[in-house]
C-alpha cells in the first residue's frame, strides 16, 4: 500500500524552523511521505503542493501567535481548489496570549479545521490523530481504484 502523503509547513510570516524540522522527521519516521514547505508558507503554497502531490492531509504549524489570522479562509480556498474535504490540522502557539484551549479549538473547528493542537503537543499525539483521520476506510474507498493501476506499476518496477 502506498504511503500517506502529508503537506507540512509553518504558516504566515513565521520563521520558527526547529519545530518544523522535528515534525518532518517524526512524520517521516512514522511512515508518512512528507512534503515539507519549511517556514513562511502561504495558504496558496500549501494548496499548490497538496494538489500536485495528491496529499492526504495538510498539517499547519504556527508559533508566533498570528495563526488564527493566517489560517482564516484556508478551508474555503481548499474547497475552491478542488481539495474538498482534505483533512486540515493545525498546532503550535496558534493564538495570542493564554486562552482556554477548548475555546481556541472551537474557533479553529468553526474555521473548518479537523484538529487543533495546543502548545507543547508531542508529535506522537499528532501522528495518532493523523492515523485516526486517515485510517483504513479512506484507503478502501478512494485508493482502491486509484491504486489498481499504480500497484501494477509498482509491482512491475519492484520485480525488475
Amino acid at each position: 500500500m502506498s504511503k500517506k502523503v502529508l503537506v507540512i509547513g509553518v504558516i504566515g510570516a513565521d520563521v520558527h524552523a526547529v519545530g518544523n524540522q522535528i515534525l518532518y522527521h517524526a512524520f517521516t519516521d512514522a511512515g508518512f511521505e512528507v512534503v515539507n514547505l519549511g517556514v513562511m508558507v502561504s495558504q496558496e503554497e500549501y494548496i499548490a503542493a497538496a494538489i500536485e502531490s495528491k496529499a492526504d492531509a495538510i498539517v499547519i504549524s504556527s508559533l508566533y501567535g498570528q495563526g488564527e489570522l493566517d489560517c482564516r479562509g484556508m478551508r474555503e480556498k481548499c474547497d475552491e481548489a478542488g481539495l474538498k474535504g482534505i483533512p486540515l490540522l493545525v498546532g503550535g502557539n496558534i493564538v495570542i496570549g493564554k486562552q482556554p484551549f477548548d475555546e481556541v479549538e472551537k474557533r479553529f473547528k468553526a474555521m473548518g479545521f479537523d484538529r487543533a493542537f495546543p502548545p507543547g503537543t508531542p508529535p506522537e499525539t499528532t501522528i495518532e490523530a493523523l492515523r485516526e483521520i486517515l485510517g483504513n476506510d479512506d484507503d478502501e474507498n478512494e485508493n482502491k481504484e486509484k491504486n489498481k493501476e499504480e500497484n501494477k506499476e509498482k509491482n512491475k518496477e519492484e520485480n525488475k
Partner: protein
Amino acid sequence: MKPILLIDFGSTYTKVTAVDIENEKLLGTASSFTTIFTDINEGLNNAVSILEKTTGKLDFTERYACSSAAGGLRMMVSGLVPELTAEAAKQASLGAGAKIIKVYSFELNEDDLEEIKSVNPDIFLLVGGTDGGNSECIIHNAKMIAQIDSDFPVIIAGNRNAVHQCEKILAGRRVEVCENVMPKFGMLNIEPTQKKIRDIFLERIIQAKGLTSVSSLISGIMMPTPSAVMKAMQLLAEGTETEKGIGDLVAVDVGGATTDIYSIADGMPEHANTVYKGLPEPYVKRTVEGDIGMRYSIHGIVDAVGIKRISALSGLTEQRAQEMIDYLGKHTDVVPTDDEFEALDYALASSAIETAVTRHAGAMEEAYTMMGLTYVQSGKDLTRVNKLVVTGGSLIHTKRTAEIASHGLYNPAQPKSLKPKSAQILVDRKYILAAMGLLSEYYPDSALRIMKKELIADGNPEQTYIG
C-alpha cells in the same frame, strides 16, 4: 588553414560564420535571406558567396548548422499547477531551445483543444503531478489530446504512476516517455525531457520543415538556434578543462520579435536570513519575452514601460515617439538612419532589456517577523553576476551599447529586483554566439578562445545602471 563553416538558418536571415580552426581565428561573417519556400540552399549559397567576397574562396572541411527557420521549434505544454509542474514544463522546453506557443495548466477543455489543433505544434509536452501524486489531470489531458486528429509527437514527463496509462491513451501517435519534470515537490528534473526534445528535433522536425534538402556536405542541423546560443554561453561561463571560463554571466539577445535572456548562475540565497520561495530555477536558465521586441513586438515594449518612459529616455515628445513607434510597427525592416530614430531605438532597446532582465531575474522581499527582519527570495539572485553579454542588431550596431545594456543592471530605485549590481558589458559585435555554440560541439577550446577574443568589452569594467 582549416576553415569551418557554421550556419544559422534563421526565420529571416541565413547567417554564416567562417572560422579557421587551425589558427583559432574568425575569418568572417555574412548573411542573406532565408529561402525556406524554394530551396534552402539558395539562401545559404548567397550568404557564402557574400562571405567569400571578403575572405576569398574557402575550402571548408566541415560544415555545421543550427536552425530557427519556419517558426523555430514550436511547442505547447500542459501541466497541473501553474507555478509548479506547468512551470517546470516551461523551463524544460525553453532550455531545449523551443519556442513556447502556450502553457496550459489544470485540465484542458474543448477550447484548448481547438487552439492546439489550429496551432498544430511541433511537439506537445504533457506533464502533471509529482511521482505518486495527482494523476487525474494528466490522464484527462492525455484523453483530450488523443481526440486531436494530427500526428504531432507527445512527450510524457509527469507522474510516473500515470505515465503508462497516458501512453496507452495516446497509442497510435509518436509518444515518448521521460522521467517526471518534477518527481518530488519542488525538485526540478528537466534534463531528460530536454534531451528527448532535442532527439525529436533532430529526427523529425528538420524533415517536417523541409530542411532536409540542405546540401549533403553539411554534417547536419544539430540543434535549434537558441540551444546553440545557450551552449555558447555555458561554455563561456564555465570554460573547459584546459581553458578557463569567465564565470557566471547573464546574456541578452534583443531581437525584432522577441527578447531572449540567458543566465548561467546558481542564484540561490547567499545569507541564512533569506528564505527561498517557489520552484528552484535551473543553473542554466533561458527565458523568452514574446511581447518584447524592437519591431514586430514594438508595441509590447510600450505596453510594458509606458510611452512616458520611452519619451524620457529618447528625449522625444510623447506624441512624436508614438508616431514613430506606429510607423516602425508597420515597417519592420527600417533601421535607424537619423538622430531621431537612433534616439528612439536607444529608448526602445533600453526598455526591452530592462523589462526582459527584470522578468528573468528573481525578486527579494522584506518581511518583518517576530524574529526581526527576514528576506524572502523567489527566482534567481543575480546581483553578484558581473558579466553581461549582449547581442542583437539594436545593441551591436550602435555606439551606445554599454548605456543601453546598463538598463539590464540593478536599479537602486527598484531594489527588489535581483539583477546584476555591476558588470562588464561584453558585446557580440560580429554576431557569432550561435556559431560558437555549434563549434563548441567539436572544438570547445577553440570556440571559447574565439569568443574571448571577439566579445568586446564596452563601457567601464564595472558598469552600473544608468537611469
